[in-house]
């Protein structure tokens, strides 16, 4: 297990290397010169040229990449052009919001998605199934930002139950009760993803329920609910776990939109604003970290996989 983990971590290196090159290329192909953006409209060409030279923007692209990558290995993601502070600090500022949002969203997804999926599969073909699985599909068909806007309209503007935007840090005044700022955003973010989990749990359970060993379990005289949970769901969990890696990528995409809708000071909104501001170092840093996180999560999923499915051996 430990050996496997180490080996897998080693295989992450080439992937990250390729990813870093891609990110660097993408970001540097974005039109717009950071030096001129930084200096504003009133800057003279000489000023821009000297700042470009200072920032190393006049060197060949591959040299710029090597410098950047060497610094990244030392934990230095460079300076934000907009904030004039180290990129890592900028990211750290948004981390609390995004992590809290992610955890709360996961909570909803697991709390709602899995039980509803089990119910849907267990009553396969009945009206319960049609409503839950149809409803899930409808939920997954709603644009995240639209859902967010109407939740704000109803629950913040209309009913005044929850705040509509922003997220003061938990360490600020209010402490944990500040989490109420995240209830609407996390529900918004959870909706399409929980819907996906419902559909996935249902489909996997239906697949498993057709397998021979479920017939064996029924032939033992077990109660249908026991067959459903112990035999069908337990095996379906393998497929569900495998999909959690993909869910993460979808989650990040939608978090970008959600944080924008609710004006949350998180990493998702940071990346959109940085793209609009052409803040190269921040875009590079955030995307690289997201890719790294994605890879780590997939590694964890694989490790979980081996625990869920004894046929998978981690050599």
């Amino acid at each position, binding site marked *: 297990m430990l050996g496997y983990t180490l080996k897998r971590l080693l295989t992450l290196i080439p*992937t990250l290397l390729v990813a870093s090159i891609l990110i660097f290329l993408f970001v540097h192909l974005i039109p717009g010169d950071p030096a001129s953006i930084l200096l504003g409209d009133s800057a003279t060409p000489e000023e821009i040229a000297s700042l470009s030279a200072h920032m190393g923007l006049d060197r060949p692209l591959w040299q710029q990449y090597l410098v950047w990558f060497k610094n990244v290995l030392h934990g230095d993601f460079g300076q934000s052009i907009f904030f004039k502070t180290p990129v890592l600090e900028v990211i750290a500022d948004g981390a609390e919001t995004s992590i809290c949002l992610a955890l709360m969203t996961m909570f909803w997804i697991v709390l709602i998605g899995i039980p509803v999926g089990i119910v849907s599969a267990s009553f396969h073909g009945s009206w319960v199934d049609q409503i839950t699985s149809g409803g899930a599909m*409808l939920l997954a*068909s709603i644009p995240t930002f*639209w859902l967010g806007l109407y939740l704000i*309209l109803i629950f913040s503007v209309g009913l005044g139950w929850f705040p509509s935007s922003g997220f003061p840090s938990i360490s600020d005044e209010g402490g944990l009760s500040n989490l109420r700022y995240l209830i609407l955003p996390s529900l918004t973010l959870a909706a399409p993803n929980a819907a996906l989990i419902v*559909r996935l749990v249902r489909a996997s359970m239906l697949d498993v329920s057709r397998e021979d060993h479920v017939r064996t379990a029924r032939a033992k005289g077990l109660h249908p609910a026991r067959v459903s949970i112990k035999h069908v769901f337990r095996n379906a969990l393998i*497929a569900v776990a495998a999909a959690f890696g993909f869910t993460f990528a979808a989650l990040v995409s939608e978090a*970008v*939109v959600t944080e924008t809708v609710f004006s949350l000071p998180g990493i998702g909104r940071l990346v959109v604003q940085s*793209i609009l501001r052409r803040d190269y170092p921040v875009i590079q840093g955030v995307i690289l970290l997201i890719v790294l996180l994605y890879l780590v999560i997939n590694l964890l999923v694989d490790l979980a996989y081996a625990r869920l499915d004894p046929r998978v051996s981690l050599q």
Partner: protein
Amino acid sequence: MTLRTTIAAVFRGRKLAALGAVWLCIITVAAIGAQFIAPFDPLEIDPIARLSEPGLPYLFGTDHFGRDTFSRAVYGARMALIIGIGSVLVALICGGLIGLLSAYFSTLGHFLMRIIDVLMAFPALLLALVLMTLLERSVINTVIVIGIVYATTTARIFFGMTLKLKNEVFIDAARCSGAGHGSILFRHILPNLWSPLLVQASFIFAFAQLQAAALDFLGLGLPPEVASWGNMLAEEKIYITRAPWLLMFPGALIILSVFSMNLVGDAMRDSIDPRFKNDIAGI
């Protein structure tokens, strides 16, 4: 099997999916005949009637410029269709070919799929955002970018399905008959992938709508003057408290269309080769 019996088999006992198909037909008609259906020019501004409520003559009301929401929605159907079909074509042609060839020629495939794996680590919307900033905001670029984003998943899916087919006995049998690579790929493998391909296309079509709307909303999608449902939402979002219906209509159109396409895709998925069911990335 004829087309009619196939369609009948897909929608048998699935009234909702059949309704979805009907809705998609309506959208298609609206898209094709937009200039005959829309009562007003989608860009025509009526300064007196800004933010007017639904009624007559403005069925869905007007936006903050005083443009007719109904007419813009009808033209938006055209944009939805263009985005959907365009992205599907880009995704299936690029991704499908990469997946097919990678699975068949394993040395090349190993390399290509590694790249695809790396690209899949980028969240779809972020990849689209970065790509959109590289390019001008235009309809064609939006189509290409969304298509590329879904080409990665499509490549993965086709890779898996082709691998399965490649190990089929009838492929061995064809090789024993002396069939060459071209014949095996395009005569024996590809025709068996048409139906999963169609199902995948319907899901990509649905996802592309949501993705395009999100790009529009973030201000990096279609040019602002284009009448698309996403743009209508993006432009009017600040008026949501003053005129809540403004976001209701385009939103409902997106939801209905995406939902319909998902329903149709889901119905089709149940009628394809069961081996490929779990490969399809859909709802």
